[in-house]
């Protein structure tokens, strides 16, 4: 009796283990050789990512973590020149627009195949665009965000869409029609979301079948098993171990990837990423804390600083605080800020004082504009003239967040607040967590002044000042409540639709001057370069202002 009572659980456990063992089979291929790379370079690059990719169909993604992975596997008609924000031919070898700027002809690259063997040709291009255009209500409302941003609307509302159709002129020439000339073309086609994917795989995987699942979105099978043309292809996403593994595409049309395997290890905690690098278990990671840059360099790592492609600004809401309607008051605030000091003490190496609402890497940047100087006396004078001496200002900053343009919001805020108080402004301090009310309050116009910024998606002035001020009805700067808002919006639309690049850039330069000298809807503060860090053994990684680094040129020494 006693024996059976004790033995029964043991026997049961043993039986269970045996059963499980019987159905468990090792999936390993027998010749698994992970570190057999010849020569003195490793055959695997391991990079520390901060978050998991959302899915592998870039069309439904809007986040950098997803694009970092899909960029290695997918290519668009238009690519980005390494190290710059400028476009270059990728799957299209050349393009030209009609004289009215509404018809774009793309000559396609010969001899390109998707991994599944499908040919890349004009029919494939048009299939892709029609697929992106024809989205169901759920996808249109959420995941297909970049299409909504760039093209305005989808097939269900075709009349209001920028995209008007794609036709294969011949096998290797595709023609895309748009409703009006715009500076977005063809630059916006360099967005990862608009990468070319295999028509057959898209069809077979029911790629457009996005559904609403509770308070989230459900994606079709294709999103886990994409097919592109790039130098790497997806091997597996091990969700339980949080690693994404890509392997070299040996049939790649261009120069093959130098390292056979590319692993993204997802490490959400920033200090853990740093420790992983120190331990040598990853070869690099993204967005090291600027406070760590020096220490990382001292340990022999390379901190690769990307050219800044962002802007930090102080938003102003004249609707909330009518004193801000007076240009003199807005200028006074600007003169009060000691931004040279801010850039030197609070922002990462390489940060610059902003002279306008876009960085100098963007076409249409006005070189002749000078920054508003630090002049507290002038600020006081202007406040006096405007009858706003001792005005109060509800000025807010976000907590629990770090953005590339704003690594430490609180420190930046404290510096700016001190400057404002020095000229007699009474600052009412307010802070909320980034996603705990801050963004909502900014959108609802709840602050007089606030800190926010923007990182560009592609090289176009429209992607900066157009985003900020062109939509008169709803923008964070509440320009609809000002005397200049309507005109500014018109001027921006007019500049955007100029076909000739030279003339367009000149028009944008003029608008930039107008914004800074006459309108001043907000205060452009600074541009901060984000960085990535790699160990000294890593060669060939070129930092990109668009964070569009490709790993196919990278080698890691043993």
């Amino acid at each position, binding site marked *: 009796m006693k024996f059976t009572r004790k033995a029964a659980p043991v026997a049961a456990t043993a039986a269970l*283990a045996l059963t499980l*063992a019987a159905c*468990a089979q*090792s*999936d*390993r291929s027998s010749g*698994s050789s*992970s570190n057999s790379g010849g020569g003195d370079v490793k055959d*695997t690059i391991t990079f520390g990512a901060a*978050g*998991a990719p*959302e*899915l592998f169909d870039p069309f439904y993604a809007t986040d950098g973590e997803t694009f970092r992975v899909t960029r290695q596997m997918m290519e668009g008609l238009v690519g980005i020149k390494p190290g710059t924000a400028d476009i270059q031919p990728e799957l299209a070898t050349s393009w030209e627009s009609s004289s009215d700027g509404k018809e774009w002809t793309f000559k396609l690259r010969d001899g390109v195949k998707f991994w599944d063997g499908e040919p890349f040709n004009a029919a494939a291009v048009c299939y892709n665009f029609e697929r992106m255009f024809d989205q169901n*209500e*759920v996808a*249109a*409302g*959420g995941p297909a965000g970049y299409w909504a*941003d760039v093209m305005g609307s989808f097939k269900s509302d075709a009349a209001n869409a920028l995209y008007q159709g794609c036709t294969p002129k011949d096998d290797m020439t595709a023609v895309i029609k748009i409703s009006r000339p715009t500076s977005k073309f063809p630059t916006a086609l360099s967005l990862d979301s608009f990468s070319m994917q295999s028509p057959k795989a898209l069809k077979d995987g029911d790629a457009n079948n996005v559904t*609403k*699942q*509770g*308070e*989230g*979105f*459900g994606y079709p099978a294709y*999103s886990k098993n994409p097919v592109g043309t790039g130098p790497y292809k997806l091997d597996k996403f*091990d*969700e*339980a*171990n*949080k*690693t994404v593994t890509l392997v070299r595409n040996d049939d790649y049309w261009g120069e093959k990837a130098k390292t056979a395997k590319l*692993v993204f*290890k*997802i*490490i*959400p*905690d920033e*200090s*853990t990423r740093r*420790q*992983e690098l120190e*331990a*040598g*278990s990853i070869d690099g990671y993204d967005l090291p804390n600027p406070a760590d840059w020096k220490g990382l360099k001292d340990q022999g790592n390379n901190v690769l600083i990307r050219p800044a492609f962002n802007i930090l600004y102080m938003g102003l809401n004249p609707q909330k605080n009518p004193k801000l309607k007076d240009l003199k008051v807005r200028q006074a605030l600007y003169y009060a800020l000691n931004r040279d000091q801010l850039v030197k003490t609070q922002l990462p190496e390489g940060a610059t004082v902003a002279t306008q609402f876009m960085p100098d890497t963007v076409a249409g940047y006005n070189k002749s504009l000078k920054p508003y100087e630090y002049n507290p006396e002038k600020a006081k004078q202007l406040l006096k003239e405007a009858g706003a001496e001792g005005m109060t200002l509800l000025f807010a900053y976000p907590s*629990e967040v770090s953005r590339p343009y704003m690594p430490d919001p609180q420190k930046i805020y404290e510096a700016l607040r001190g400057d404002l108080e020095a000229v007699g402004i009474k600052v009412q301090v307010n802070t*909320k*967590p980034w*996603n*705990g*009310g801050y*963004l*909502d309050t900014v*959108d609802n116009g709840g602050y007089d002044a606030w800190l*926010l910024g*923007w990182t560009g998606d592609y090289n176009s002035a429209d992607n900066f000042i157009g985003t900020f001020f062109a*939509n008169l009805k709803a*923008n*964070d700067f509440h320009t609809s409540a000002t005397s200049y808002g309507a005109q500014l919006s018109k001027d921006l639309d007019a500049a955007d639709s100029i076909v000739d690049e030279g003339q367009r850039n000149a028009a944008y330069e003029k608008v930039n001057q107008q914004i800074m000298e006459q309108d001043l809807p907000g205060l452009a503060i600074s541009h901060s370069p984000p960085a990535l860090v790699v160990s000294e053994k890593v060669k060939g990684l070129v930092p990109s202002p668009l964070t569009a680094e490709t790993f196919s040129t990278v080698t890691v020494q043993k």
Partner: protein
Amino acid sequence: MIRFIVRRLLQMVGVVLILSLLVFLWLRSLPGGTVSAMLGERATPERRAALEKALGLDQPIWVQYWEFLKRALTGQFGSSTGVQPGTDAFQVFLTRFPATIELAFFALVIAVALGIPLGYLAARRRGSIFDNLSIVGSLIGIAVPVFFLAFLLKYWFAIKLHWLPVSGRQDPDINATRVTGFFVLDGLLTREYDASWDAIKHLILPSLALATIPFAVIFRITRASVLEVLDEDYVRTAESKGLTNKVIRGRHVLRNALLPVVTTIGLQTGGLLVGAVLTERVFSYAGLGEALAIAFERRDYAVLQVCILMAAVTFVIVNLLVDIAYAVIDPRVRTR
């Protein structure tokens, strides 16, 4: 006994229902939300409205709750929006749960394997240097914050000595086969012993960090409990009867002293789940705790709901197991 278990399980259903409503209301009363998390600085009123509509967040809250309940009953909890977007929240839970169980199990084994013998020895040698050292050790265990301890452990064992990995669950180069999601077990089942060994190496530091508090508590309770039992009449009687030391220790002292210890272990299991949130985060260990932390930052309602509810279910079940263990250790409980 069976009626007892059934009754407890029925109670659990009630608890989960009420909790689901509370969690639902709580999440939606938080400032910020899924929409802000998804759009960030590219949020405009128009995009916000479109996304809210697409996600059904523009519906009245009771409609949302009712929809949630209906779905939950069919086993669909909705897609994650932050931890693993597009994956059903329950699937996220299933992927992450084995990781946490593995970690908590290792931590508990460490805490029990060290806590009980040390507590017993400390009590037997009350007032000795050993006793005092153990008490100081357990105090440090409670007082040192997990993130600091984690930092020290990682710094020494991973970065300086290169003995153990810094974070994660397994080296991606291992290319292990997944069966149950318990990495150590999977390696044994598929005979990929290197995979098991690698998973164990990844478990050592986080489970040590996580074990400190339960170890300290178990140690102190055992010590106090043994001291109390040693003074009992039946122990003196047993000694005077001339029973061997082994029998006295095993049958009379330990068995009686263990009752409060078992309760404590049960309660500590709940504490382990809480402690796992921090430990998993700093060790980037892909368990429930890390999922909860990310889900909270990104307002991933579906994952938060599932994980909190399932944590409650786990807690209730663990307590039920503790009660059953009581019955096994103490025959008096069984007859009642």
